[in-house]
């Protein structure tokens, strides 16, 4: 399976050109790190790939690197967040990961026009990390209520919330 993912990453790098930063392999498998602007091209290329079409966006999530040392991992270049796209090819049982790095306040392109399952995932990322997506049809909070202050999975969010005992308005 990982061979198919490696080959798919090669075809992806041909399609993206400069948009691709690097292809790495770690415990997850094949991970392609790309520029935010190349996301639409990458998702389109992977979804309509000739031999391993990645039909499903299994998961989309984010990481806040802000409590990491400045020179380590993804925290360098002042990129605070990483978005991770977990794509799965049902027909060939192959998995590939996309990663894009975002600075504080930077908006990300929405994956909803390629995968409907990105809708709620991106709402959750917006709710928990405060990352905004351009092109999302309905970017509201999904777990916390409207009017909740702060984004809980940011590393600088206080454990008890900004306004403890703040309840949703009826």
């Amino acid at each position, binding site marked *: 399976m990982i061979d198919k993912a490696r080959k798919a990453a090669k075809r992806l790098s041909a399609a993206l050109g400069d948009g691709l930063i690097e292809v790495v392999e770690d415990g997850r498998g094949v991970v392609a790190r790309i520029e935010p602007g190349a996301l639409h091209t990458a998702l389109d290329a992977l979804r309509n790939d000739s031999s391993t079409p990645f039909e499903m966006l299994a998961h989309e999530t984010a990481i806040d690197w802000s409590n990491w040392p400045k020179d380590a991992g993804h925290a360098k270049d002042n990129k605070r967040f990483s978005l991770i796209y977990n794509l799965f090819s049902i027909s060939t049982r192959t998995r590939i990961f996309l990663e894009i790095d975002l600075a504080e306040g930077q908006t990300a392109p929405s994956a909803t026009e390629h995968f409907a399952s990105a809708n709620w995932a991106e709402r959750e990322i917006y709710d928990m990390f405060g990352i905004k997506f351009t092109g999302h049809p309905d970017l509201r909070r999904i777990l*916390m*209520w409207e009017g909740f202050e*702060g984004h*809980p999975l940011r590393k600088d*969010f*206080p*454990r*008890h*919330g900004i306004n*403890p*005992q*703040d*309840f*949703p*308005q*009826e």
Partner: protein
Amino acid sequence: MKDTNIGMSSQVISGSLEEAAALVRDMKKPGALEKFVDWARMHSLWPIPFSTACCAIEFMGMVSSQTDVSRFGAEFVRFTPRQCDLMIVSGTIVNKMAPVLKKIYDQMAEPKWVISMGSCANCGGMFNTYSVLQGVDRIIPVDYYVPGCPPRPEAVIYAMLELQKQIGRESGVLSSKERQRDFWVYGINGRGQTPKSRILHGERK
């Protein structure tokens, strides 16, 4: 209520006909009607479960055959608040759920009592975070707190028996507001306050 084995027992101890007959015989004495009302109430509690987490499983154990709560006159679990007078909050209440809990409590008919079952309902338990209500007593008044994570069914039955004793001492009060008037400040969307003193209603002056 005498000492009883509240674990495995087939003994039915809820209000007996003899007790009722004695109450009716003394009906001309002052305060007898209130006593009768208390007696009737304490042996016909109608619980509503507000079950949101694993304590609900213990609650199911409590109402089913092994530790049968109906022996103590609280047998019909109803799922509409309008038919109930005892709310058993069993489980974690998140802040998003808090207005729902308050609304359901408000919909219950007077007089009404609340048992907070388990650590989460008592004080937030292990979930000391932004999203979890740190104790249901911040939004509704609680009569009995049952510790445990989750508490055994016998513990909740014990709380219910204690509650029955308390109802027996209440001299026919009409509403829970009447009972809780001077030491209870609670609310939602205001800052919820824990009570200054957790005096049991019957012992209040």
